[in-house]
């Protein structure tokens, strides 16, 4: 960095760089992709290792065994770690021996059940894809949308309301309507902090945090009042109409549903929007270098509002997808922090839609496997949050990973996320 005299690029340079990117770059795309994936992959591996150490340290039998001899304690600990990770694998991908057995027997039902863990992992990944895309789109526009959680709640609330209150529509209309409603709800929730940022410079991080809590309180109010199921004392909304439910592909215990493919489609749309359209280009330029974007005559204020609204819409879809595809109703605190995990996902996926999808598959798999880990190995499900925090830390501070694995500094300075201070000086 110190060799370069000026790190700020002019508008012309940005344009030229954009034009030169893509297939005509010096490295073939697969080498670029590999290079981009080195740090995330190492971060995940390091996170899993540290998680293992943590499981080791919190296993009681290590200490009771240590009293006999250190080797017994060590062995007990290793066994605990291995059984935990084996349970994680079986719970998220499937038990290999069971899959083999099922394939040999040739029964359709047995095969489906053997593959269910994998399908369930996809179900768990789906909201992550939407929410991760939401945060990633914000990052691309230079905005830190920490409010995916709130937007997700509002999206879920609107989708649930449209799902149970409208009757008599065919699924082909009802499902898109409910999804669209969820997206619009989330977009409205993202629009407000975006507008505030463009208009007053109020930092979106604070405003979105505040909007999160407003959304949660609002859904609490609705679920204890207007939206509460008439025959229930619990804060739960009525079950949505069957015509609004996202169709699932297999029988009852298998929850795999259409939402996953919708998520993939949306991920492609986001990719196309960001990298193939003029609007996407404006948005990314406004994010990478607002001064240059303004100099080039782009309206950065519009870009901010548009990016926050789109980001909110994606997060709203995450909520709508959960309501329409999995829960079929709205309950309190149903999201369990998906909106915050999304920050880790976007960073892990380097704010690229393909990366976000991969990261979401990983997190969904981990989350799904963790349930089994808790049941079979007695390791609380919260170990996943610890893993996520470690992974996020390594992604955010790649220098740590480079020090540990003695990697070289990259030739091209990595795009390190920076959002500036509270003051909105960037606008």
């Amino acid at each position, binding site marked *: *960095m*110190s060799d370069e005299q000026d790190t700020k690029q002019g508008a012309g340079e940005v344009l030229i760089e954009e034009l030169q990117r893509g297939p005509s770059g010096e490295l073939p795309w697969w080498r670029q992709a590999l290079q981009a994936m080195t740090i995330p992959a190492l971060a995940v591996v390091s996170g899993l290792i540290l998680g293992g150490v943590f499981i080791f340290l*919190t296993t009681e039998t290590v200490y009771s065994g240590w009293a006999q001899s250190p080797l017994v304690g060590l062995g007990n600990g290793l066994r605990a770690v291995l059984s935990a990770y084996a349970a994680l694998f079986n719970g998220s991908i499937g038990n290999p021996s069971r899959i083999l057995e099922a394939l040999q027997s040739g029964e359709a039902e047995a095969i489906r059940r053997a593959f269910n863990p994998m399908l369930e992992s996809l179900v768990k990944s789906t909201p992550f894809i939407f929410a991760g895309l939401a945060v990633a789109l914000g990052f691309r526009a230079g905005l*830190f949308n*920490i409010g995916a959680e709130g937007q997700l709640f509002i999206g879920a609330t609107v989708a649930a309301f449209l799902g149970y209150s409208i009757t008599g529509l065919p699924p082909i209309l009802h499902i898109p309507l409910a999804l669209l409603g969820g997206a619009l709800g989330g977009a409205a929730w993202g629009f407000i902090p975006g507008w*505030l940022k463009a*208009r*007053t*410079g*109020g*930092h979106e*991080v*604070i*405003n979105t*945090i*505040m*909007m*999160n*809590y*407003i959304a949660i*309180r*609002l859904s*609490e*109010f609705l679920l*204890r*009042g207007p939206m509460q199921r008439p025959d229930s004392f619990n804060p739960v909304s009525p079950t949505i109409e069957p015509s609004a439910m996202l169709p699932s592909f297999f029988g009852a215990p298998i929850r795999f549903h259409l939402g996953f493919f919708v998520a993939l489609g949306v991920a492609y749309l986001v990719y196309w929007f960001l990298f193939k359209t003029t609007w996407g280009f404006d948005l990314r330029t406004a994010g990478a270098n607002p001064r240059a974007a303004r100099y080039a005559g782009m309206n950065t204020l519009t870009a901010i509002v548009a990016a926050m609204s789109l980001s909110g819409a994606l997060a709203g879809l995450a909520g709508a997808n959960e309501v329409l595809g999995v829960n079929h109703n709205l309950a309190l605190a149903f999201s369990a*922090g998906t909106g*915050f*995990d999304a*920050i*880790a996902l976007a*960073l892990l996926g380097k704010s690229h839609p393909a990366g976000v999808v991969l990261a979401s598959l990983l997190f969904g798999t981990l989350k799904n496997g963790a349930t089994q880990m808790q049941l079979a190995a007695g*390791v*609380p*499900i*919260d*170990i*996943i*949050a*610890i*893993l*996520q*925090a*470690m992974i*996020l*830390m390594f992604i*955010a*501070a790649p*220098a*740590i990973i480079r020090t540990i694995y003695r990697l070289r500094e990259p030739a091209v300075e990595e795009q*390190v*996320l*920076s*959002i*500036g*201070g*509270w*003051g909105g000086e960037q606008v």
Partner: protein
Amino acid sequence: MTTTALRRRVDRVVPARRIAMGIFFLLLGVASFLLAGGIDPGTVTVFGLTAGGSQAILPEWTLSSPSTLNLLATVSLAIGGFQLVRGFGAWTNWILAVVAGMFIFSFLVWAAAGSSLNLAGLLGATLIKSVPLTLGAMSGVLCERAGVVNIAIEGMMLMSAMVGTLVGSLTNLWVGLLCAVLAGGLMGLLHAWLSVTYKTDQIVSGTVINIFALGMTSFISAKFLQRYQDLNNPGIFQPIEIPLLSKIPFLGPLLFNNNLFVYGMFILLILLHIGLFYTRWGLRLRSVGEHPKAADTLGIDVFRTRYMAVILGGLVAGFAGAYFTLGSVGRFDEGLTAGRGFISLAAMIFGNWMPFGGFGAGLLFGFADALAARAAILGIPIPSEFLLMTPYIATMIVLAGVVGRGQMPAADGQPYDKE
């Protein structure tokens, strides 16, 4: 630096703000009138002035509801009119506090019209609920005055609440408190390590700590605290009655019969205020947050100062976290802090990055919390969820600059790169 100073001066004289503020005062006055209109004449509001557990019984305070409301509304309107025509200039923010206070009082008179409300109990609860918020806000002030954004207050609190419970159950309360505070400091060290040394984005670093703390505490809770109840029973610090002072009518039992955390909060408030604004230490800390390069040129070690500030902020947040378990409920449950770290962040912004400002905001938000808990009993037609929303909405309004732009440290959030 110069731009902030300039902005401050500009803020005071812009007529748009004067008029907006005047209209706001008028609106509050009109709202009070409307509240008065909904009450039958002759209704009285009775305020109880005896705090729970206090020996000295004070007579109740009886007010005629409509006339009190009308009086307060008239005063608000008069102030609003003056603000519109002439303006209060530099005093505007104080006048705002007075008018807002009058409106809150009007609201209470209205809510308790025809029945009675224990004002002492409400204020006592307000103070208690403001303790973690104020301490959290002070943690934020320490970090952000040195230029490091701290959204990890929530995580720091959660971690130290858990550590305090665990260690407190294993040993005794005092060791538990010490370890809780140290755990907060350790989280601060992690935040400083990531954001100062590795120049990680400070929001991301804060998010790492929040996710980590939530996962870690829930893990320990599920694995140990819920299974072995002995590990989740540290007891709590009992209130200490200060002789003589606690005998002052009304205020005595309210202020001087509390536990260590309330007194600790007041002591820290004064120390932090004096330290930040009247000592060389504070000047250096603030200079690092305003213009690190200039501070560096003058020989101040920016990295060391930021490390110190963030670790101190962690220690204060640790004290706040210990309050939740050792000073309040005496046990740890998952997600115990329930977003209060983020309300602390809001209180810090609302309080304009000042320790006493944070205390004021903490009291205001604590009041909303205390009132929400009583909304059902009082029969206030506003759902308690909306009362609980007010801190967040108020912060967004403040941040939007409606009440005058905050004076945040100029280099807040920017990693310092020594070149």
